[in-house]
C-alpha cells in the first residue's frame, strides 16, 4: 500500500507463477533431506516423554506433579497459557491481517496457522490431564443433561474456557484446511508417486480450479476469517478471566483481558519468528519470507511488548495506589520474595530485550531477531509463572503460605509437549506446502487476493 522505496519487497523480483509453484512444491515432492530425519527423530523422542508421563499420570494422578495447596495450579497451567498464547499469532496473521489487506502476510500465514493448531493441541494436553480423573472430566466440563441433574458452573470462566478453546481449535483447523485445498490440488497434479496422487487427491476434495470453485473458496475463507477474528480476542480474554474473576491479589486486576491478549500476540509472533528464521534458511525460501516480513513482525513484537510492559507498570502503580495491604504485599513478594529472581529475569526478557527492536539495525539482523524471539518466548513463559505461582504461594493467611517446586514429571510433561509440537511441525513441513502456493502466484501476477478480499467483506 505504501510506496516507500527503502522497504524490502514482499517477494524477491523475477518470479513467475510457474517458478513459485516449482520452488514451493519442490520442498514437499523432492527427496527427504537428512536433517529432517534427525530433527524429526529428536522431536519424536521428546514426544515419547509426553506419553510416558501421561501413562504415569493416569495411574497415580496429579500427585506426581509438584502442585499442592496453596499452589494448586503449577506449571501445568503455566504451560497451558503459554501454548495457547502462542497460537494467537497464527490466527491474527490469517484472519485479521487478511481483513486488513496486508499483502505481506501471504507467505507466513500457512505455517503460522499450522503453528496455531499444533500449539492448541499441546495446550489441550494440560487442561485435559490436570483435571486428575479425566474420565470424569466430561461431566464437569460439558453441560450434558444427565440423570443426576448435575450441571457445570455456568458462571465460571473455567467452563467458558472449554467452549472458547474447542471453538478456537475447530475454526483454526477448518480455516487451515480450507486454505490448503487449492494447494493440495497442485500437489495432486504434480505428484509422481501413486500414493501421493491418491492421498493428495482425496484431500483436495475434487478441486478443479474452476471459477465457481474459486468463488466458493473466497467466500468460505472470508467467512472463516470473520469468525476467527473475534477468537483472537475471546480465547485469551477467557483465559485471563480464569484468573481475574478470582479475588487472589495478583490475579484480580481489570487490566488482565487486554494485557493477556497483547501478551499472547507478543509470544505468538516471537514463536513465528523462531520457526520462520531457520525454515527460510534450510529450504532456501529467503525470496518468499523476506526481510520485510521479519521487520514487520519485529514491529508488531515491539508494539505488543510495550503493551505488556504497560500491564506490568499499571499493576505496580495500582497496587500502590489502592492502599490495599494484600495488593501491596503481593507486589512486595513478587519483587523481593523467594521467586523475586524470576520476576527480574522476566523484566530482562520481556521489557528490556524488545527495546532493541527500536533500532533499524537490529530489525535488519536475522541473527539478532532470532535471539530476541527466543528470549521473548522464555520471557512469556516466566510471566505466566510469576502470575500463577507467586500470586498463589502467599495469599491472605501467612499460616497457609508455601512453596512450589516443579517435579521432574512436571518438566517431562512440558518437554513432551514441545516434542509433540515439533514432531507435528516436522511432519507438516515435509508433507504439506509451508507457503501458500496459489496466493504467492497471485502476488507475482499482481492479482492481489487481499484487495478483492477487502471488497467482499460485509
Amino acid at each position, binding site marked *: *500500500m*505504501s*510506496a*516507500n*522505496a*527503502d522497504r524490502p519487497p514482499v517477494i524477491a523480483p523475477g518470479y513467475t507463477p510457474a517458478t513459485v509453484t516449482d520452488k514451493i512444491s519442490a520442498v514437499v515432492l523432492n527427496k527427504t533431506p537428512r536433517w529432517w530425519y534427525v530433527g524429526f527423530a529428536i522431536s519424536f523422542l521428546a514426544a515419547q516423554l509426553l506419553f510416558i508421563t501421561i501413562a504415569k499420570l493416569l495411574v497415580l494422578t496429579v500427585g506426581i506433579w509438584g502442585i499442592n495447596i496453596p499452589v494448586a495450579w503449577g506449571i501445568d497451567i503455566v504451560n497451558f497459557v503459554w501454548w495457547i498464547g502462542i497460537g494467537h499469532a497464527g490466527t491474527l496473521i490469517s484472519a485479521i491481517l487478511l481483513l486488513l489487506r496486508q499483502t505481506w502476510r501471504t507467505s507466513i500465514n500457512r505455517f503460522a496457522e499450522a503453528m496455531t493448531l499444533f500449539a492448541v493441541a499441546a495446550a489441550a494436553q494440560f487442561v485435559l490431564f490436570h483435571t486428575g480423573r479425566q474420565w470424569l472430566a466430561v461431566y464437569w466440563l460439558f453441560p450434558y443433561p444427565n440423570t443426576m441433574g448435575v450441571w457445570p458452573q455456568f*458462571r465460571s470462566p473455567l467452563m467458558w474456557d472449554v467452549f472458547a478453546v474447542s471453538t478456537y481449535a475447530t475454526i483454526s483447523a477448518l480455516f487451515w484446511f480450507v486454505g490448503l485445498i487449492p494447494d493440495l490440488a497442485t500437489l495432486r497434479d504434480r505428484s509422481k508417486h501413486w500414493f501421493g496422487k491418491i492421498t493428495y487427491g482425496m484431500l483436495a476434495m475434487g478441486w478443479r480450479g474452476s471459477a465457481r470453485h474459486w468463488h466458493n473458496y473466497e467466500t468460505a475463507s472470508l467467512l472463516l476469517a470473520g469468525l476467527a477474528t473475534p477468537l483472537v*480476542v475471546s480465547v485469551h*480474554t477467557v483465559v485471563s*478471566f480464569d484468573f*481475574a*474473576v*478470582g*479475588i487472589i491479589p495478583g490475579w*484480580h*486486576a*481489570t*487490566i*488482565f*483481558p*487486554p494485557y493477556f491478549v497483547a501478551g499472547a500476540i507478543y509470544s505468538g509472533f516471537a514463536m513465528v519468528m523462531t520457526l520462520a528464521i531457520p525454515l527460510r534458511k534450510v529450504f532456501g525460501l529467503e525470496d518468499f519470507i523476506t526481510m520485510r516480513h521479519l521487520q514487520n513482525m519485529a514491529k508488531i513484537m515491539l508494539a505488543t511488548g*510495550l503493551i505488556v510492559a*504497560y500491564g506490568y507498570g*499499571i*499493576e505496580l502503580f*495500582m497496587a500502590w*495506589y*489502592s*492502599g*490495599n495491604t494484600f495488593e501491596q504485599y503481593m507486589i512486595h513478594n513478587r519483587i523481593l520474595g523467594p521467586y523475586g529472581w524470576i520476576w527480574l529475569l522476566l523484566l530482562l526478557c520481556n521489557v528490556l530485550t524488545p527495546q532493541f527492536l*527500536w533500532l533499524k539495525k537490529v530489525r535488519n539482523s536475522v541473527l539478532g531477531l532470532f535471539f530476541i524471539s527466543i528470549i521473548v518466548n522464555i520471557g512469556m513463559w516466566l510471566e505466566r509463572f510469576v502470575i500463577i505461582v507467586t500470586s498463589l504461594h502467599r495469599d491472605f493467611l501467612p499460616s497457609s503460605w508455601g512453596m512450589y517446586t516443579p517435579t521432574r514429571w512436571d518438566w517431562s510433561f512440558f518437554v513432551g509437549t514441545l516434542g509433540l509440537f515439533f514432531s507435528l511441525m516436522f511432519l507438516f513441513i515435509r508433507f504439506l506446502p509451508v507457503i501458500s502456493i496459489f496466493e504467492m502466484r497471485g502476488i507475482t501476477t499482481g492479482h492481489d487476493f487481499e484487495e478483492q478480499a477487502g*471488497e467482499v*467483506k*460485509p
Partner: protein
Amino acid sequence: MTESPWAPPLADLAVLGRRGLVVGALAGVVSAAGLVLNPAQFYRSYLVAFVFVLGVALGSLAISMLHHMSGGAWGLVIRRILEASSRTLPLVALFAVPLLFGLRHLYPWADPARVAGDEILRHRAIYMNPTFFTVRLAVCLLLWTVFAQALSRLSKKQDDAPAPGLERRMQLVAAPGLAVYCLLVTIASVDLLMSLDPHWYSAIYGVYVVGGQAISGMAFTLLVSLFLVRKGAMRGVLQPRHVHDLGNLLLAFTMLWAYFALSQFLIIWSGNLPEEIGFFHDRLGGGWGVLSVFLALFHFAVPFVFLLSRDFKRDIGKLAWAAGLLLFMRWVDLFWLASPAFHPGRLSVHWLDLTTPVALFGLWLAAFARELGTRSLLPANDPNLAVALEVHAHG
C-alpha cells in the same frame, strides 16, 4: 494555495467558526453565571466538558499517529482534519486552567480535612496533592502539544517542498508519540476522573479512556468530512472505499471500548469486593442504572448493529449519523464516569451539565475551523497520495 483543488472552503469555515464562537460564548456567559450561583456544580460540570473536548483533540492526535505507523489511503484523506484538531491542544490546555481553582470542590484528596481522616488518602497524599496534580496535568498537556506540533510542522514542510525522508521522520515522531500518549492518558485519567472516587481503583481505566478518545476523534473527523463534502470541498476525493475503511475503524474502536467496559464490569462484579464494587453499586442504582443501560445501548449496541452494514459504512451521509450519536455518547460516558461520584444514589442532571460542554465545544470548534483553513485539505506532496486517490473500477 487558492488554485489548489484541495483548498479549504474558507468562507464556509468562517461561518462554522463564527457560529461556534457565538454559541460557545453565549453558553460560556450562562455557565459563568452558574459559577457564581453554584460553584461546586459548575466545576463538576466543567470537568466533564473539559475531558470531553480534550478527548476529541487527543483522539485525533492518536489516530493521526496510528496512520503514520500503519499507512493506508484512509489516513491520507483525513490527515489534515486530524492535524487541525490536534493543533488546538494549546487552547485545550487553556481550558484546563479554571479546573485548578475548583479542585477542592471536586476531589476528596484536595480537602485537607478529609485526607486527615482517611488512611488511604493519607497514603496517596504524596502523589495525589494539588501541586503535583497541577504539575502532572501541565506536563501531559505540554508533551501532547509537542508531539502534535512536531507532526504538524513536518506536514507543513512537506507542503512547502516535497522532500524524501519526511514520511520516515513523521514515523519517527509517531512511534514514540503513540506510546507516550497512552501512558500520559492513563496518568491524566487517573488524576482527572478516577480519583473523584476516594478509594476505588481499576487497572483498565486508562485503556478504557484511550478507547473512548479514539471514538471521539474518529466520530468528529467523520462529521467534519461530511461538512466538507457538503460544501463541495475535496470533490471526488473521499471515495466510498475510504469511507468504508473509516467506518470499519469506527466500528473497531466502538468494539474495543465495549470490550474494555465489559471486562471491567465482569471482573469487578464477579469479585464483588467491598473496595471495588462501590463504583458499580453507585452506577446501577438510584436512577443511574437507567443511564448505564442507555450507555450500553447507544454507545455500543445500536451503533454496532448499524456499523456492521456495508452499505451504511460506504455512505458518508449515513455514517455521519452514527458518528454524531457516538460523539454525543462520548459525553454521556464521561458524565457517567464522573457524576455519580458527586450524587451517589440519585440521578442528577444540572443545567450546567449541558451549558458547559456547549461552551467549551463551541469555542473549540471556532479554533478548529480556523486551523483547518490554514492548510490545503490534502497533503499534496505526500508520495502515497496518488495511490490513495486512484479511482478503482469497483471502488
